[in-house]
């Protein structure tokens, strides 16, 4: 029996060698990767010794500040709580970071270039991080957040000319001081995917006008029940229109016209203009990529964007914001911003200034042009059409006194029997573009979302 016992010992020798092998795999060979894993709290515990920079609103209000905990450690406090939780995110030893706290972590802990300097500076002297000044406007953010109470939804407002994010609000929000209690930290403004409904007709209108195929005065037929991709399509309340202009078709949001326009423009051209507006890719905003989704016709099961040339995409229904099309509120705000800015799409920007502890401005990012989507002339034509929506069409509830508002409503049917819809309004004044979404409620975009947009625009001084 002794020979098998020797062999058995050899088996254990081998097994124990495997144990040492795996221990070295984590402790020595895979060490760097594990250290840098965002779930690893050890680096964050070290970074607690740094007095993290303050995050401020555009008017200087503190949105995130550091307080001394005990000894040489600092903790994060959020005086505005849920109000700014979605854009600001949180910084928590145990639960990691999100939002601006994650995107600007290097600046907030005062890390210059390489990681080693952090370790060095920890040893030498207490360190203070850089402050951030955001573009967020507390008065408007607060109003938007209040108006969203009792709903699920989001409001995004952008500076028309510079793409600065003035409002990014969503409900439900969470308490950034206690991320462990948050049911979800889902940011509806950047992660919520909704069918855009008729607001997407602004994109189709852009493609129609800028390609030269149509003019605002072009005569189109708005008969109810036109066959699009083999299936008859209805207008709102089954209303039939005769020969009307393209402007009238937008003012009254005539589905059959815009679906027909989409089909006639073709898949390629629709794809071209959607790409220029930034569909199909993550928004170029200073915000973590993991917390933003791209917009476009989406295969929800495989979680990927489909190209317009795909057989599964119905180009006519996509052109009126139906079919497989799913978009984020941020994307639709960008569409409004682009048209309002003479056809130039700007990169959305949350932070306008990075300031070091001595008060010097370290970085002041200039507004970045993302892309010219259409000619200035075309933008003016589409804008005029959208103004008529607010003046005499479905968007009159967004009209302001003394300021011209351009806009487009959207009512995306979710459950036809119960009358449940996703309710939209996108629009712009000379300075501010806005997108409002209210999730799964009765009513129309023009009656529910447009009044919210109006008040937010007012709060932003429009």
């Amino acid at each position: 029996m002794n020979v098998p016992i020797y062999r058995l010992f050899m088996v254990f020798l081998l097994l124990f060698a495997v144990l040492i092998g795996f221990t070295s795999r984590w402790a020595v060979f895979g060490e760097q990767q594990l250290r840098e894993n965002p779930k690893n709290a050890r680096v964050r515990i070290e970074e607690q010794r740094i007095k993290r920079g303050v995050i401020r609103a555009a008017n200087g209000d503190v949105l995130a500040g550091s307080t001394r905990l005990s000894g040489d450690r600092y903790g994060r406090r959020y005086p505005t709580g849920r109000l700014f939780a979605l854009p600001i995110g949180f910084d928590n030893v145990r639960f990691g970071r999100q939002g601006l706290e994650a995107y600007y972590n290097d600046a907030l802990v005062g890390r210059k270039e390489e990681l080693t300097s952090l370790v060095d500076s920890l040893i030498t002297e207490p360190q203070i991080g850089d402050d951030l000044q955001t573009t967020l406007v507390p008065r408007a953010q607060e109003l938007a957040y209040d108006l969203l109470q009792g709903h699920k939804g989001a409001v995004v407002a952008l500076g028309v000319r510079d793409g600065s994010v003035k409002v990014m609000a969503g409900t439900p929000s969470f308490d950034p001081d206690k991320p462990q209690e948050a049911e979800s930290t889902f940011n509806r403004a950047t992660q919520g995917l909704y069918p855009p409904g008729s607001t997407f007709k602004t994109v189709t209108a852009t493609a129609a006008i800028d390609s030269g195929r149509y003019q605002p005065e072009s005569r189109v037929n708005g008969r109810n029940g036109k066959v699009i991709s083999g299936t008859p399509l209805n207008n709102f309340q089954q209303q039939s229109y005769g020969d009307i202009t393209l402007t009238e078709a937008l003012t009254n949001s005539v589905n059959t016209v815009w679906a027909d326009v989409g089909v006639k423009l073709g898949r390629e051209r629709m794809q071209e203009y959607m790409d220029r507006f930034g569909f199909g890719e993550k928004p170029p905003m200073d915000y973590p990529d993991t917390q933003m989704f791209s917009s476009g016709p989406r295969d929800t099961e495989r979680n990927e964007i489909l190209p317009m040339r795909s057989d599964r995409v119905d180009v006519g229904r996509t052109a009126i914001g139906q079919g497989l099309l799913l978009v984020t509120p941020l994307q639709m705000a960008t569409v409004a911003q682009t048209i309002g800015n003479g056809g130039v799409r700007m990169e959305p920007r949350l932070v306008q200034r990075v300031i070091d502890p001595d008060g010097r401005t370290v970085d002041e990012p200039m507004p970045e042009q993302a892309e010219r989507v259409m000619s200035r002339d075309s933008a003016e034509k589409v804008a005029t059409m959208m103004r008529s929506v607010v003046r005499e069409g479905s968007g009159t509830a967004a009209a302001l006194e003394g300021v011209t508002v351009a806009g487009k409503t959207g009512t995306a049917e979710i459950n036809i029997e119960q009358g449940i819809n996703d309710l939209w309004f996108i629009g712009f004044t000379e300075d501010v573009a806005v997108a409002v979404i209210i999730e799964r409620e009765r009513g129309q975009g023009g009656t529910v979302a447009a009044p919210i947009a109006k008040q937010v625009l007012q709060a932003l001084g429009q």
Partner: protein
Amino acid sequence: MSARNRELMALIPASLLLTAGFAAIFIQRNELLSNVSLTYGGMFLGLCFVAHLVIRFTLPYADPYLFPLVAVLACFGLVVIYRIDEDLARVQAQWFVIGLIAFALTIFLLRDFRLLERYRYTIAFAGLLLLLLPRVPGIGEQVNGAYLGVRIGPISFQPSELGKIAIVIFLAAYLQDTRRVLVQGSRRILGVTIPPLKHLGPLLVVWGAAMFMLVFIRDLGSSLMYFGAFLALLYVATNRLSFVVIGLLMFAAGAWFFSSTVGHVQDRIDVWLNPFAPGLYDQPGGSYQIANGMFAMADGGLFGRGLGAAVLRVPDGGPLIPAPETDMIFAVIVNDLGLLGGAGVIATYLLIAERGFKIATLATDSFSKLLATGLTAVMALQVFVIVGGVTRVIPLTGVTLPFVSYGGSSIVANFILLALLLLISNRARRPA
């Protein structure tokens, strides 16, 4: 030098290790280096000396290295537990004393350990009862999804620790009876030795029991431990590799079947394979523990942070690694003492296994051989299961690291196991 004097001499480094360990922790905590560490070292030396005297007078021929090796592990365990939580270390020290009493009692009561052979079925029954106790409603306790603990009032213990010894005793007794029949009745089919069907029954029962444990105790690791010990014994008893291969295939088939059909086993495997998957990481009983064990080992690196220097708690109080003093103690050791410290601990277990198998080869009768093999194998497998779980060789299971982890049942059961090994050794090495 006689065997007993060698044993006594070997205890000195163990006590020095304890003294130095406590001194290191005191320095790390910036406390004055008092003579407390010396006191602890002295007390520990005293306890080991008493145990040594017991061995000297009752088992004069027993293996001289086994007890000092265990003492090194136990004192190392005490230091690490003290570094995690001082109060737990005091309790552990008390359990250490109780463990030594159990050690002495086992030696006194089982001078002729071959009595055990006669009561094999009673012992087997008791062992199974112990294993099933955690599933009894009202006293059973579920920890991390597995049913391993029992709680009666304020006392909680892990009956499986004692159960493993009972099962090994039964298997050794059973196999020494049937080993010849198993071999001689075998037929060779296509070059593979197949045991006679009549005797295959009991083996299937053991396989069934392992599968039963997998499903009802909900624990792949323990199941692997018992079945592995069984296969080790079967192999040594029959010297037929084919039996082991058949057994492994059956275990793998069963484990695969149950892991794909029983949800909680599947969860454990998911956690093992994808510790960083977002959904798994955050859910209760998810991969947070295993992932943070890996972070701790990465933080330790080659040489470690130094005893007592690694971060174990989030500054606002929560533990960074759940269960640092039991399941995850190996991760804490690597964090503090690095790969070298961890490898040292594993090497110590390897030396203990070497002594255990040495005892088995020296033993003259087959029951003693099988018993020594089984006891050694089950302990070594337990080390493999828990260290392998922490280092992600296999799915993590909540068993203790013998003599090192915090836990009374574990200390007591492993001292009884040690006593049995020394009893066998004493008999084997007695001059004719």
